[in-house]
């Protein structure tokens, strides 16, 4: 039990990821305000992006541009660019989703004059 506890604290990045993810999920589930739900959704997306970045972090490594063309390539001295590219794409996808979500929120507000889920549900009945 104690070992498991310390094992968790040896990887603070995973712990941070779990906290942000659960926090976002909690906001999405418990808040009635639609914009707050979107914020929760954005936290969930960001936490996954954070996870991707944190597993690809490498101490003492540089950008993946060859330091010298004469010496053989030392893979250990370069950071893996792929997770960062994935992260960029995931951010773009997240921005697009949030944009559509905000547009829907604006349209809902114009139509029902409220952003509170319960008030809207009452008006829908």
């Amino acid at each position, binding site marked *: 039990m104690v070992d498991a506890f310390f094992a968790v604290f040896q990887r603070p990045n995973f712990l941070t990821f779990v906290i942000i993810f659960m926090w976002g*999920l909690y906001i999405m589930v418990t808040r009635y305000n639609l914009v707050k739900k979107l914020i929760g959704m954005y936290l969930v997306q960001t936490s996954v992006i954070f996870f991707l970045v944190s597993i690809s972090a490498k101490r003492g490594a540089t950008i993946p541009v060859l330091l010298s063309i004469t010496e053989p390539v030392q893979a250990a001295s370069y950071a893996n660019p792929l997770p960062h590219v994935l992260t960029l794409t995931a951010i773009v*996808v997240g921005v697009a989703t949030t944009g559509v*979500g905000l547009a829907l929120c604006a349209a809902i507000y114009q139509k029902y004059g409220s952003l509170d889920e319960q008030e809207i549900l009452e008006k829908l009945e």
Partner: protein
Amino acid sequence: MSHQLPAILFLLPLFAAISMPVVCLKHRHWSHPISVVILVAMVLVSILNLYNVIHHGEVQYVFGGWAVPLGIEWVADGLASVILVLLSVLGLLGVVFTGPTSPKDLGGRIVHYYTLILLLVSSVVGIVFAGDLFNLFVFLEVAAISSYALIGVAGGRALFAAFRYLIVGTLGASLYLLGVSYLYAVTGTLNMSDMADKLPLLLSSKALVGGLLFMFIGLGIKMALVPFHSWLPEAYTYAPDSISPILASLVTKVALLAWVRIIYWIFNASIIINDIPILLLVEVVGALAAVIGASLALAQRDIKMMFAYGGISHIGIILIGISQGNPTGFVGGVFYLLNDSVMQAALFFLAGVAFFQYGVRTIDDLGRIGKQAPWLTGALIVAALGMIGLPPTGGFFGKWYIILGALEASNYVSVVAVVLSTLLTLAYFVKLFEAIFRQTSTGSDIQFGVIPLSSKLTLGVTSAAIMILGLFSSPIIQLLLSHALPPRF
């Protein structure tokens, strides 16, 4: 030239979608004919692609000449090509249907509406062909974002349904991405075939199991699997009538196809979590979905809601088929997926026509159809035969092969679930037909204008397709058996 076909299939709708707002800036009524022409071209190219794949083997399309595993790969194999022919035909029918029935108050936004439909179709091509896990994620999200916007396009109650779908769907996408990053951390590759080569040595890894489960939950949300289905009925019911058929026949099916790819093409279906084989898990979840979806459908009074729950139960039946772990069940599941796409399209076309021409929304209004539109009742009978699974239709043969596969694997729970779900489907269609033939309709017998030719055409084609899939089931099953099986079989 022929090895470029997958890219052409994708670029046709994508370029049309991008150029649509420019081309139709002055002439907004061009957007419908342009979409129809593009989708007709897509149907032809997809048939050509299927012919090519059958005669010359699968096409591995590598983008920009970057070799696998570094580059992004698309795989046009038998399974993808067969499904793509059907999905592009259904996309075409959906666009033909949408012409006169699209929301009236869109004005200039009608151009963007067609842009979104074409974007949805192009992302479906991407999902079907993707040979790379992250590429799959991107296309799943393109499909999802276009469907959020399409559902919300008409305003009103649909806005709220679209928002809920957006929140739940994005959670699913995040979980899928989390699963992909787990698998990437373990294997160091994103290419499906490369990952399949590296996995056998790593099967004991806990991260692998975690990643697989996250992906399953994520895709389960996207395909509206039973515990995660709550977004679907509302979204499809309140979506514009012209959009529901396209969404119902394309979006959930491609998420299911993505899951089939992951479980059979990457994991070879052999992974075991805490002594529980993953296929058993999928089978149990599928059985629950089949029965619960059909019982919920029985409780509905809104006909679109009823059809949406029917679709949820069919997702379960397809999962039962593909989780049997033998070729018979797998082919039955894939064949049922084809049938289900056609039947869902047919049912939502029916619901659209019934509302547009006769103002029918709930079961209580259905009496009007029986009196005024016997041909609509006829189309509904054909669709019902398919949904219940009676012999001349494709639905029967799909269920038949699924049950044969389950008996072969001696999974009697699956057999019971399929039969139970069939009985429940029978029950809710009996409820529908009782309402039609008793003719206790309240309200006036009004008809709004003449029925457009396009609606009759789409209804006719889908009804015929349900029959044709049944009558020609044996060549299609043979085709699937010889070209669409995963590598392990």
